[in-house]
């Protein structure tokens, strides 16, 4: 029993070390991406198009909806306690600090995380990865790095986009309930906004982007011999992506605000 537990622990530790080494290699190759003679630049552009541009519609919809819901709830409750102005602080806390990066991360996990894990898994099964090796192209620098950079950059850009639309959406709804000048609205928002709000939002976006892309790429390359492994790694990429993002969110929030 103890021997079995020891073996399981040793295997889990080995997997952790391997994953850590893979992440370090990915970061090292990413740093070299611009310096190398690259045929992978087009892959990066395609990844940005898929992850950032094609997700703009759904991100706009979610953020507008979220901003609207916060305003409707806030305006109906807060004035009863004489705290009507608190709506701006709540908007910033919920959209910029917390839900902006987190909901953007969830959208990217659902769209790009699964797509990357599935695509790379299929490439392993059909020996396309071996074909890249056979012509001298390093699959990490050609396939993994553009996806890693593409998802991470997209995550940061989409978080900014989410924040903008979330705050703009709340303004639009405010016009129906309690009309206010656009200038006054944003002045009130800026008066409660701190540098820490912006930095923590962007830091979260950056960390989430790294975690989502790393998990998806790692799981995709983990496929070995059978197509039945592909849905399994896609599920793992999603599950681990969610868990890691929520853990990282909690850690960054604690560091910044406690």
């Amino acid at each position, binding site marked *: 029993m103890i021997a079995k537990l020891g073996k399981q622990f040793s295997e889990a530790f080995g997997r952790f070390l391997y994953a850590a080494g893979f992440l370090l290699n990915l970061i090292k190759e990413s740093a070299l991406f611009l310096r190398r003679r690259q045929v992978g630049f087009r892959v990066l552009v395609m990844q940005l198009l898929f992850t950032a541009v094609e997700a703009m519609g759904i991100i706009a919809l979610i953020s507008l909806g979220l901003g609207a819901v916060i305003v409707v709830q806030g305006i109906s409750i807060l004035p009863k306690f004489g705290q009507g102005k608190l709506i701006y602080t709540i908007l910033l806390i919920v959209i910029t600090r917390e839900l902006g990066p987190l909901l953007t991360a969830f959208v990217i996990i659902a769209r790009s995380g699964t797509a990357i894990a599935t695509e790379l898994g299929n*490439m392993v099964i*059909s020996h*396309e990865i071996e*074909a890249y090796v*056979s012509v001298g192209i390093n699959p990490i620098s050609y396939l993994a790095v553009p996806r890693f950079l593409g998802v991470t950059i997209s995550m940061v850009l989409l978080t900014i986009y989410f924040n903008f639309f979330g705050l703009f959406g709340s303004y639009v709804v405010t016009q129906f309930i309690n009309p206010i000048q656009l200038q006054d609205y944003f002045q009130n928002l800026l008066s409660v906004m701190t540098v820490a709000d912006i930095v923590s939002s962007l830091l979260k976006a950056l960390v989430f982007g790294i975690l989502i892309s790393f998990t998806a790429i790692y799981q995709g390359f983990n496929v070995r*011999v059978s197509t039945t492994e592909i849905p399994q790694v896609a599920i793992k990429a999603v599950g681990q992506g969610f868990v890691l993002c929520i853990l990282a969110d909690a850690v960054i929030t604690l560091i910044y605000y406690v």
Partner: protein
Amino acid sequence: MESLIELQRVTVQAQEHISLDNASVVIPGNRSTAIMGPSGSGKSMLLKVAAAIIPPDSGRVLLHGKNLQRLSQRELLEFRRTSGFMFQDAALWANKTIFENLALPIQFHFPNRSPEEIERRIRKLLQPMNLLDSLKLRPAALSEGEQKIVSFLRAIVLEPVILFLDEPTPSIDHQLLEKMLGMIRGLKDRGCTIIAVTHDAHLTSMIANHLVILKGGRILEAADISEVRRSANREVIEILTQVLSEAATYDTDILDLLQE
């Protein structure tokens, strides 16, 4: 006999299965080698290990006496530029067009080559195979045989001096096969070393000077064809008969077929 690639006590384990078991073999340079054995005997794995696509779990692979695992980045790139690998299942990049499949190795190794030069090279390769109309198609739009032809063309697009072929002939129609065999013969005549996993007696007789026989991941025989002919090893004779049975009749001496 000058050694081009040498496997020393190489073992490769895939999942729970041992694909190569303590295999040692010398693949000579400036000659062509056919690797034969029953299905599942580790032929493809041997080829991929020799081509430095899959690293061995234990043992060493030497290229001109140098450990392939310890080559510098520059030496490894040079090896890739001067070698080509045709996969048994074609392994074309599914999200790229046929043109892109053939252009990528050139763009990677020769980034300064102009698009016009690259296109000329690709058209020159595709034209004899009647595949010029397929330039903008994805591999899924081609038949299995056509995909294998494109995989072969990708392997030779950089004009390699070492060519690895994994079961190149099955599922290719007769007309295209003749053209491909003609190209392989041309490469051999120009001094290209060809290392082929094959069950095809015709291809073996056409290109091979050297024969490697595998069984259960172990090297059973590795010698010049003339020596294999004289081999008294019943197991070798049995495997050759079994492997080439589709090409031979029962009363044909299978080893004569290799000398046709």
